[in-house]
């Protein structure tokens, strides 16, 4: 029947109607979704670490939800290297921005170059007197920009030395004896090397082992004004040359990256390694068969009177400027990081010693750890926490460490470049990219 045929005009009318419906439906949906029951709040958080993701799950279930039943928290995990470009994209787009972001050490600065467009809000006023309850180096220093605090870190992260006491005992060596790094390699290195293994693994493509040693020796990449120091400091070249010499002598071995380093650890390719307390969790996870074979000690010092240890890594919770529920976001951060219960939960889940000092009196922190042969990690951490050399993290930190890794560390460790010249070239590269 002719009447049942669709004319172009009818088609257009229908298409226009369908388009209108399709266009308006999500809006209508959004309106109805956001026209919400009273007091119902949705808090969105992004993070990058699986252990913190699990901690958040436990925290929300055990502590947050019972106290804040009207607030639903969505935690989304993104791999570390992908989170920062993703954040850049949502900040640029102005939409899809979460309320809270877990920001890793040295990553905050790249978002804070422009003082007139800070995508995170300062937390100083909200923190108030509770600032005194935090260990500053681990709790706030890394997330402090232009003298304002933008993030709260929950873990004390001093680097400690872990060593295979079973292998040292077999070789008749005392790993506790050396007081300085030079004594460490002189007294232990030759015997360990002759036994067919490495004394210590060093990273040849990454900046962090160089920084830990240099920082502990008293160096800083930046001063507080944002000026780069590392290329003009003879100590930096000395440290790089020293690490290269240990590698060349066979006393140090290459650490390998990613899963390779744990395979080497399991193989017994090295007998000691350094790491912050969060690294202990990875050791247990990826080298479980080595339980009871490790012990820990403080780092040997670079020179008499030098720093006992330095901080490494750490993650802070930051509130975005785009969040419309900053008060709720702060409640969440406070409950997770600035309460004894929240801090202890993180310790139970991740073995992270809290930066929140009122929790330090809790007995549970001082439990013995079978993985470390019955030692009490917290005793080491608490002592080291007060002796950490604070790092000066500039806004351009991530750019500088990239240049240092590519040009200075790789140049010296892989190509045998002159350390001073390689450092100078790396800083030139940094200034070029800045």
């Amino acid at each position: 029947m002719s009447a049942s045929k669709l004319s172009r005009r009818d088609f257009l009318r229908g298409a226009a109607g369908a388009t209108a419906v399709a266009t308006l439906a999500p809006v209508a949906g959004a309106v109805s979704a956001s026209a919400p029951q009273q007091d119902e709040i949705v808090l969105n958080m992004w993070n990058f670490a699986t252990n913190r993701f699990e901690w958040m799950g436990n925290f929300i279930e055990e502590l947050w939800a019972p106290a804040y039943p009207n607030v639903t928290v969505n935690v989304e995990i993104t791999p570390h290297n992908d989170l920062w470009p993703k954040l850049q994209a949502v900040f640029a787009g102005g939409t899809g921005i979460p309320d809270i972001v877990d920001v890793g050490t040295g990553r905050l600065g790249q978002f804070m170059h422009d003082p007139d467009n800070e995508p995170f809000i300062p937390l100083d006023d909200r923190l108030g007197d509770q600032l005194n309850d935090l260990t500053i180096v681990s709790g706030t220093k890394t997330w402090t920009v232009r003298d304002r605090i933008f993030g709260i870190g929950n873990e004390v992260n001093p680097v400690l030395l872990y060593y295979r006491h079973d292998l040292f005992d077999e070789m008749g060596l005392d790993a506790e004896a050396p007081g300085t790094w030079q004594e460490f390699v002189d007294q232990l290195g030759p015997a360990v090397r002759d036994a067919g293994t490495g004394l210590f693994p060093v990273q040849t493509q990454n900046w962090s082992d160089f920084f830990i040693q240099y920082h502990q020796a008293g160096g800083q990449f930046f001063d507080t004004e944002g000026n780069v120091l590392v290329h003009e400091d003879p100590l930096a070249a000395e440290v790089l040359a020293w690490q290269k010499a240990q590698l060349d002598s066979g006393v140090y071995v290459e650490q390998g990256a990613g899963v390779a380093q744990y395979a080497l650890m399991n193989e017994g390719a090295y007998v000691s390694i350094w790491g912050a307390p969060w690294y202990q969790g990875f050791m247990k996870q990826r080298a479980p068969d080595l339980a009871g074979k490790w012990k820990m000690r403080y780092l040997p010092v670079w020179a008499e009177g030098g720093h006992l240890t330095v901080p490494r890594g750490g993650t802070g919770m930051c509130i975005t400027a785009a969040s419309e529920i900053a008060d709720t976001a702060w409640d969440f951060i406070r409950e997770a990081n600035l309460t004894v219960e929240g801090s202890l939960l993180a310790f139970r889940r991740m073995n992270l010693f809290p930066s929140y000092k009122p929790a330090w009196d809790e007995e549970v922190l001082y439990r013995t750890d079978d993985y470390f042969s019955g030692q009490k990690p917290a005793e080491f951490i608490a002592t080291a926490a007060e002796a950490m050399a604070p790092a000066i993290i500039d806004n351009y930190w991530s750019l500088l460490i990239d240049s240092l890794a590519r040009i200075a560390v790789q140049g010296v460790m892989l190509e045998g470049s002159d350390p001073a010249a390689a450092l100078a070239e790396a800083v030139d590269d940094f200034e070029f990219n800045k």
Partner: protein
Amino acid sequence: MSTSSITATGTRAPQAGSWWSRHERRFFPYVLLVPFLVTLVVFTAWPAIDSFRLSFHRVRSLQSEREYVGLANYERLLTKDKRFRTAIVNGAEFALGTAFLQMPLALAVALALNSAVVRFKTMARLAFFAPYITSAIVVAWIFTLIYFKQSYGLLNGLLAHFGVEPVFWLSKDLAMPSLIVLGLWTWVGHHSLYFLAGLQAVPEELKESARIDGASGWQLFRNVTLPFLRPIFIFVILTGSIGSFSLFSQPYLLFESGSGPLDAGLFPLMYLFFMGFRDNTRMGYASAIGYLLTLIILAITAVQLLLIRLWKV
């Protein structure tokens, strides 16, 4: 007949006074194209135009005002930026690997698949094509396991049986050959299908008449088959070159989200990503990298087309 009556086919007859009625036939196709055109303008054309404008600006952060710097970004890229040069050289090396290794191998595979020697042809084609449709992430992970430096790396483990010491396959000097091997594994099968299609398009009567004229197997291949494959060569070389300069996922994953030792695995698109998003927020500079890369690829393509035109088989 009334102008508003229904015609026999059910469509309305044109109305003399209505503008739409008079122009409907002409404009209706464009109306149908509107959704596509809107999408194209919003998601492709406008970003391309805006990023071109952006390439003449300096941007401190993504939320900041743009500062006009003229050609400074391009000048810096062309005259001062060693990393960009490294990335281009790496792309060119990979492209050469594509041209001189992937293509002959793909042709050899196609000839084998086209011959009577290989049985189970469908299975063989599938086997050669499978790496191409495998996710880049999986490919990178497979080759990470193969290239592991230590003795538990698959390749080093194999070599250890012959008393060979472990080799650092992703070192500065071996990174590019290792990447080219990854490329061979991934794309040879895919390219061979194009050559296979070309081989099957050679008219049988031409081959038959060449045989009757006494042409040897080599002469047949050289003078009859190869000329028919010329368009395939052009296509494979062009797409291979463009793909070489645009390589991202495989090196990025193989080098653990980095550019390899001393940038041995740095490619132009990776550098764009690092400068614009990951390590820096220099969106203007990243845009300039994108446009300069486009120009370089266009220039290389033009040269290749010229050379191929001059190529007389």
